[in-house]
């Protein structure tokens, strides 16, 4: 006759063994990943490769390589020519990236009337005011003229020459280094809210027309920014001081 305690211990041992065996079987059946491991198994990785490959099947892939901006919100090709490349070079040169919420909160926000001008405009003068105002910052090739993708014309009475601005509707940084028919703007836009105390007035974005007419440029631009040309801008830095120390 065995002692009662020993029989109890035996039953407990058997139950525990069966329980552990059962747990082990279940783990093996569910996954090849060892219990407690945080590393994917070979099977997980193989399945992942299948998922990754399938994800690319039928997906919309922008033309060109993955670095090519996709058409849409941050595509500046509507401005013509090398606008995307110029904006990219501008950002790289001055270490500019998509603004954060914190940055936007710190920058000065103004209502603005976003309009377009181009080298096909009848009143377009060559060289533009940008030529005289140019300080060697926005052109990648040294051409001291208005550059699509980085140049805007503003009312210098409202935005000082050389200021860095950001246009949310285009996701575009620009240097305010050109000026348009400021007096005429102020007269024709006098009733616009953008010419109120909180307004930056008209912000004329330079376009390289290419094969397009002046009116086509304006129409494309208006379709792009929408809302009947009304929008906002941020003055990131007033005046040309932001360029100091930049390569």
């Amino acid at each position, binding site marked *: 006759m065995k002692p009662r305690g020993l029989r109890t211990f035996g039953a407990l041992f058997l139950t525990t063994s069966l329980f552990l065996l059962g747990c082990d079987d279940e783990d093996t059946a*569910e*996954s*090849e*990943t060892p219990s407690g491991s*945080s*590393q*994917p*198994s070979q*099977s*997980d*990785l*193989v*399945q*992942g*490769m*299948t*998922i*990754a*490959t*399938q*994800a*690319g099947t*039928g*997906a*919309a*892939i*922008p033309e060109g390589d*993955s670095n090519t901006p*996709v*058409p*849409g*919100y*941050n595509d500046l090709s509507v401005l013509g020519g090398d606008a995307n490349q110029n904006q990219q070079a501008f950002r790289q040169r001055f270490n500019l*990236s*998509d*603004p*954060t*919420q914190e940055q*936007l909160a710190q920058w000065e*926000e103004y209502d603005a009337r976003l309009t377009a001008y181009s080298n096909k405009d009848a009143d377009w003068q060559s060289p533009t005011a940008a030529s005289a105002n140019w300080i060697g910052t926005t052109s990648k090739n040294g051409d001291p003229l208005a550059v699509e993708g980085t140049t805007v014309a503003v009312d210098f009475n409202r935005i000082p020459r050389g200021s860095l601005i950001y246009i*949310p509707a285009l*996701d575009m940084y620009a240097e305010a280094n050109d000026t348009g028919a400021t007096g005429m703007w102020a007269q024709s836009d006098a009733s616009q809210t953008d010419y109120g105390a909180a307004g930056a007035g008209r912000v004329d974005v330079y376009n390289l027309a290419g094969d397009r007419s002046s009116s086509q440029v304006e129409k494309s631009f208006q379709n792009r920014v929408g809302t009947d040309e009304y929008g*906002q801008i941020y003055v990131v830095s007033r005046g040309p001081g932001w360029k100091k120390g930049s390569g």
Partner: protein
Amino acid sequence: MNGSFFILYPLLWTFICSDAVGRPITIPAAVSALVQRADPQANVEYCGSVSTNRVDYYLFLLTRKELTGIVLVQYPTGKAPSVADADTSLFPFSGFLQHSFAQPLQEGIEELLTRRNLEKNRAARQGISHQVPEISAVGRDIDHVVYPISGFRLGSDSTREILRLLRTGPTLSVDPKDAPPGSIIVSPTQFYNDGPIFLGHAGILGLDGSIYSADARYGGARTKNFTLSSWLRRFSGTNGTYAFVIRARFSGNARGL
């Protein structure tokens, strides 16, 4: 179901009738200012309002580059408006919206989104398994790829819900920087009641560090629109980024999408 349901439900339903679910011509300036301030870079689309006896709710769609989401603003009588909820999808309802007394509000939100989608002629894009009117397709696009291969599916377009499902599902959490191809990457929407709102996103890590995700610029179509590095730059500081490997040999109960 507690007793308050029987008291509150009829009371709320009295005020959430067809006349109270709609699109008033004017939005209170404080409400529109809150939404604009919450995400200054987003395009804002007003969907309509739902009124209860004490609180008016205003529903907005935010679209910002690849991302789209929904914002529900609550405007209690005599108080300042605040963001009640925001995400790529409000379904399934969570937070205060999941309580039974909020059932009429849930129905009002669904009605507004249904109306909006019908107006935008997007009804055809709604998956047959989706009974709720979705705006974003972040989860659906992942499911179309992952479910036939692994048997696991999310069944939600909410980034917060997607994160929860991945954390509790047959997955392994991995460091996003070292995530292998095929991993699901998710950055949940974050918001504060007074703003800002940081819309989240979710996608599949493809080969060569590319990421495929539903892209609002293409009507929610799956698009090669991020690299892992650009995703981390975009979301890590504001939303947090999480990555999960779906474990192989997960014998899910396959159901049609």
